[in-house]
């Protein structure tokens, strides 16, 4: 009996080893790609791709921090690029290998967090806003509407310090990237005031509760909100009046990668207009690829949740890497909010 189990295991392992094609390990957010993209890439380049998914930056970072995780490509949010670079996790991107780099929107060609795109290539953009049930009349239009007693126990905020602080700072008319202790303390006060109204701090799992009507309003990323809206006509989404945080997610190649060349091929493949368009369309997300946007169907390209019109877009503020001192203060404030 034991021997048979052992042989079975050995056979299983052997069959894994048999495939001699090079293998690329890609670790991306859940629901962030067209299911056909990976098979197409494998077919065209004669390789295998191990595609894993994660739900939060922290989860991804905890895995790749060791510098020996085995992953080749990951998709951190912009503000993580500098810390990852400081921890020697990133490989330099060779622009000569990326023929399709020019397809990016001009705004993403020279982003603040990596002006030469030396370490990261923008992929998709998300933004935090308010998803709500249409039963709510009048509908929420601003962050300050989330401090209303009518939402008591029917509202959630994201379980993410940057998002919660961002909403509070915006409510006060301040920058989401504020490092000013007085401003941060004021934002903390707002968060603590709001906490008794909250059902919970939830990320993706609030989607189902919103669809089922348990939750009436939730701070939510627009891509998640889009999924909720696709599931139920009752759900709507708004970019709050005071402004909101925008999170570009980037493709990076890890320094530990043993397939640097293939990794560049993958990045370039993802930058192709057709591929980028298919990804955005299938995952229902916001592409940073200008050429891809041109290929998107009219109705999708004008979807106000994913592709807000210019007057809404200007209210968005890009999330920045925080200084160590500010990060530490924010960590402490977050702990204080949570234990309030």
């Amino acid at each position: 009996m034991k021997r048979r189990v052992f042989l079975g295991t050995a056979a299983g392992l052997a069959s894994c080893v048999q495939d001699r094609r090079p293998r690329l390990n890609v670790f991306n957010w859940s629901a962030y790609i067209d299911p056909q993209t990976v098979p197409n890439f494998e077919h065209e380049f004669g390789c295998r791709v191990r595609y894993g998914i994660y739900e939060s930056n922290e989860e991804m970072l905890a895995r790749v921090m060791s510098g020996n995780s085995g992953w080749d490509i990951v998709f951190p949010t912009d503000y993580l690029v500098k810390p990852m670079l400081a921890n020697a996790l990133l490989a330099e991107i060779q622009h000569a290998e990326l023929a399709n780099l020019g397809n990016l929107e001009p705004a993403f060609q020279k982003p603040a967090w990596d002006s030469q795109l030396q370490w990261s290539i923008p992929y998709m953009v998300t933004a935090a806003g308010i998803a709500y049930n249409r039963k709510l009349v009048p509908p929420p239009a601003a962050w300050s509407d989330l401090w209303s007693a009518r939402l008591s126990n029917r509202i959630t905020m994201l379980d993410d310090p940057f998002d919660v602080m961002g909403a509070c700072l915006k409510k006060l008319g301040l920058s989401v990237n504020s490092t000013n202790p007085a401003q941060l303390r004021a934002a903390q006060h707002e968060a603590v005031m709001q906490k008794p109204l909250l059902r919970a701090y939830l990320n993706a799992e609030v989607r189902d509760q919103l669809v089922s009507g348990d939750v009436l309003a939730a701070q939510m990323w627009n891509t998640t909100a889009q999924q909720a809206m696709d599931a139920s006509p009752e759900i709507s989404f708004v970019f709050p009046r005071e402004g909101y945080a925008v999170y570009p997610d980037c493709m990076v190649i890890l320094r530990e990668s043993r397939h640097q060349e293939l990794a560049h091929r993958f990045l370039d493949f993802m930058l192709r207009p057709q591929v980028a368009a298919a990804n955005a369309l299938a995952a229902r997300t916001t592409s940073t690829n200008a050429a891809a946007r041109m290929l998107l169907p009219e109705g999708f390209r004008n979807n106000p949740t994913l592709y807000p019109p210019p007057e809404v877009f200007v209210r968005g503020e890009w999330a920045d890497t925080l200084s160590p001192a500010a990060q530490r203060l924010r960590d402490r404030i977050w702990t204080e909010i949570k234990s309030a």
Partner: protein
Amino acid sequence: MKSLSLYAVFAYMFLHVPLLILAAFSFNSSRFTVWEGFSLRWYRAAFADAQLGEAAWNSLVIAVAATVVSTVIGTFCAYGLWKRSAPVLAGSLYLSLVTPEIVTGVSLLAFYQAIFRFLHLQLGMHTVILAHVAFCIAYVVIVVMARLRTVDAQLEEAALDLGANEWQAFRYVTLPAILPGVVSAALLAFTVSFDDYVITSLVAGVDSETLPMVIYAVARRGVNPMLNAISALIVFGLGALILISERLQARPAA
């Protein structure tokens, strides 16, 4: 006694009803908590999910490997401690048992990260298996030790007097007597390993995603009837395993 029985019934309901409901709703055709009709769609969905299948396979390989290694090492260790105590080793085993999982996990992660600076290795099945062996040993030692306490030490002495060497005395006298304890220990090690999320999630690499990791990821995205199906499969699968082992152990001990 009557009120005690009533209380016991209540306690058993508390223990079993939630899982039974979970299992029952795995056969519901609706994705909501409203009974619509019998369906196997969630089982089909679970079996069709390639990621889930691979994770289940990984979990099985890791649990079997960790169980075999930790049971052998742990049984030897319990035997050695039974012969003569070794306070430092016993103390560290004890400490490993009461260390909060999160602390074990982060310390192993820090350890792997530190040694990988010098060795060109990657996180993977081997790092997970090693971590599991490390936390399973203490469980094995405790269970086997409990059994060893019931063994008469003079039997081995008699064997030695009759010309057996130390190994033979262990192999032919003590080991058969403690075998049921060893089986229980292996079973415990298997479930502890199969169930672990906290430590595994910190030391897993690309190819070592386990079932609990997938379950956690799915649960974080909300209630999903596919999870009910997986739960039912695990409950009944492990339940069958327990029953078989109880049968095996029901044989009288030497």
